[in-house]
């Protein structure tokens, strides 16, 4: 299927709205899960968008942008990956195979946007010296421009010129690459899980890691069932922490805080 001009424009606007949302209201929180679904709606194939977004989401579990660190931009990756999975007819694995390198490259533009905003911040400070409130407001909001362009430009360019490249890729792609990408699509969520385990205080809660695995692998309990079990245990833990005597609470809090700091994973 060929992509229409209105779809390219809609997807470009989508990428801008998603990055702005992630900086402010955060209802889509810049997550590839939502980017994939929304791109899927625009492309008329929610199923593909859902699958591409879901796999990318699993890869970024636990990867956050703390203190201004950049992470692979799977938001843009999910949009581009979904589009080419649909237009090429090559399926979800192909889309993920494209989304990963796109996401890894796009991180450079995230850095550039954060860098460009130094310029507007300087202008805000200059406006304070003049006590020019209009200029303070204007330059604060101009910060949206580098952010928006850092996503919109690459999405627009890739969608306009990408189709021929992707078609050529599809025609000449050898079996070892298509098959390899399929295997990679299955294995890549392991990276997100491993990053999370590095961040969370696994040693303290190792029994729950094993219980979760046991319930899913041996008892085939579906994910919602496991979440219910987890909530039950979490409520007990919460009550224990709150109702326990003050000393216990303090010791507990100190523990968990320490564990999180020790296990903190930085990219």
């Amino acid at each position: 299927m060929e992509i229409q001009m209105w779809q390219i424009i809609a997807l470009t606007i989508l990428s801008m709205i998603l990055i702005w949302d992630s900086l402010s209201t955060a209802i889509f929180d810049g997550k590839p899960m939502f980017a994939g679904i929304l791109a899927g709606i625009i492309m008329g194939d929610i199923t593909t968008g859902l699958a591409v977004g879901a796999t990318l989401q699993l890869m970024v579990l636990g990867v956050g942008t703390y203190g201004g660190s950049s992470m692979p931009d799977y938001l843009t990756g999910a949009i581009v990956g979904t589009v080419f999975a649909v237009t090429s007819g090559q399926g979800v694995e192909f889309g993920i195979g494209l989304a990963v390198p796109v996401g890894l490259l796009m991180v450079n533009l995230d850095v550039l946007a954060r860098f460009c905003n130094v310029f507007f911040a300087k202008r805000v400070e200059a406006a304070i010296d003049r006590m020019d409130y209009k200029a303070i407001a204007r330059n604060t909001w101009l910060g949206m421009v580098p952010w928006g362009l850092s996503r919109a430009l690459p999405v627009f360019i890739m969608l306009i010129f990408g189709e021929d490249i992707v078609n050529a890729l599809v025609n000449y792609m050898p079996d070892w690459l298509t098959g390899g990408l399929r295997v990679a699509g299955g294995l890549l969520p392991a990276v997100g899980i491993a990053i999370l385990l590095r961040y969370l205080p696994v040693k303290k809660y190792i029994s729950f890691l094993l219980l979760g695995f046991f319930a899913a692998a041996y008892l085939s309990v579906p994910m919602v069932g496991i979440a219910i079990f987890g909530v039950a245990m979490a409520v007990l833990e919460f009550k224990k922490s709150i109702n326990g005597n003050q000393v216990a609470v303090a010791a507990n809090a100190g523990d968990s805080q320490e564990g999180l700091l020790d296990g903190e994973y930085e990219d």
Partner: protein
Amino acid sequence: MENMKTNETKLTKKDISSVSRRWIMGSQITWNYEKQMAIGYLWAMLPIIRKLYKDPKEQQEMLKTHVQFFNTTPHMGGFICGIDAATEEHEGYKAKETVKGLKTGLMGPFAGVGDTLFGVLFPTIFGSIAAYMGQEGNIAGAIIWLIVNIAILCLRYFTAGIGYREGSKIITSAKDKLDALTAAATLLGITVVGALVSTVVSANVTASFTSGEVTVNGQEILDQIMPCMVPVIVVAFIYWLLGRKKMTSTKAIILVMVLSIVLYALGILG
């Protein structure tokens, strides 16, 4: 003498709501490497500054105070704005130094809890469920996650008001609860992650071993030892890798992709 006088201008509920809205919308818009959320903080406090300080010199000094380096979890910053607003309302211009200390003193502790809860645990718990269901073609998990995010946004609207009313005692009163909540959410997150290993990482071993006339399927042997053995090994391997110096998540992703292609080409995985 005028600096000794307690500020008489009172802030209204509307002022505080305005701070909340401005913090939510503006905190990261002009995020930059030099002062991070400084401009966002200034933007949130602007109406307060204009209302409380009538003297242009004082106004300018406070603008400069609020444009200093600031960084915390966006979800938690509203509390700090609220506490700050209450302090400035009571103390006026002489609170300038206090406010500087307050901001730098509070941003760390709030970020510690906020990044863990909103940056890691909530996205892990709801993202895992949404992605697991999404891989099965079910959009319900994603919709639940979206509703949770909207609920969090609504709660964020009240953070400045809570900070304003409770003042800095919020840190002691809320800390126990937040720590307990963090511990509980961590436990839930780890349980879900344990299940994720076996459900979302997939690897199908295609290698088989022929000994005489008997051909043994590799996957069957592994399944008899333990279900999902390959996913467990892969997760453990990457976990170990990430603990090594100079290893980043990006390198790990590239390594997994190369490894997948090699293992497929060799006919071990498929």
